[in-house]
């Protein structure tokens, strides 16, 4: 499965996470963000509005993104977080690392 990545500026992209991010497509997600990291993108807004499944390997792939961009002051933000994703975020306390926003637009404004 491929991920839809929308470029908002030279530094910021929005990734539509789709129905699931799990061990079956975590490598596809890594491939998708890697290309943009290499192009100099530092801010990633992950749109979870349609996401029903986020598992531990999926979350691990987001950590992988965070590890790549955080040394250059890059940010990963979560937007429109669905309830199944919120359950994982609360359980793992990742809200301490990834800021959450009600909408993609609000995330974009905060990261600008």
């Amino acid at each position, binding site marked *: 499965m491929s991920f839809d990545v929308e470029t908002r500026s030279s530094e910021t992209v929005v990734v539509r996470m789709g129905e699931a991010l*799990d*061990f*079956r497509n975590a490598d596809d997600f890594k491939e998708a963000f890697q290309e943009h990291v290499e192009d100099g993108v530092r801010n990633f807004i992950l749109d979870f509005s349609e996401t*029903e*499944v986020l*598992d*531990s*390997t999926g*979350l*691990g*792939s987001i*950590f*992988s993104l*965070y*590890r790549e961009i955080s040394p250059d002051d890059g940010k990963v933000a979560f937007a429109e977080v669905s*309830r*199944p994703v919120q*359950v*994982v975020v*609360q*359980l*793992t*306390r*990742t809200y*301490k*690392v990834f800021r959450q926003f009600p909408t993609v637009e609000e995330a974009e404004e905060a990261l600008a």
Partner: protein
Amino acid sequence: MTALTLEYTDLNRALDEVRPLLEEWAAEHDEAAAPSDDTVRYTQLVLHEWIANLLQHAHFKSRAPTVQIRASTENRHITCAVIDNSEGFDLAEQLSPDDDADDFPERGMGLQIIDACTNQLSYTSTASGRHRLEFTIPADQDPCLSMLF
């Protein structure tokens, strides 16, 4: 209320089907007795992590993998059993604290998530040579994984 029983020989199919079937099953209960939406979500997450774990790491030798999932509910909590025909492993050993754990681990969080969400978690051999995961998701469960932050 009847228990839910599902059986699969295709574990990928199990991953895709268990989540919606569990939701439908829970919705059939009277509102007063039904598990909460979050109790169902924790159950879905635990079953997903466990089946994913079987798919990625379990040894089935030359046997075709089979998994049977049973769920029942009482007083708004959910009790599950997952019986598989793998070689099994020592769950308690895998759950023992790892002092070298990464702050942002890419792997190895699945069993910790299962442990955090459940009560009365066990994985034991059965008399018929299979292995059985059992757990309960309490009503109003408020789990928290302490290994990360």
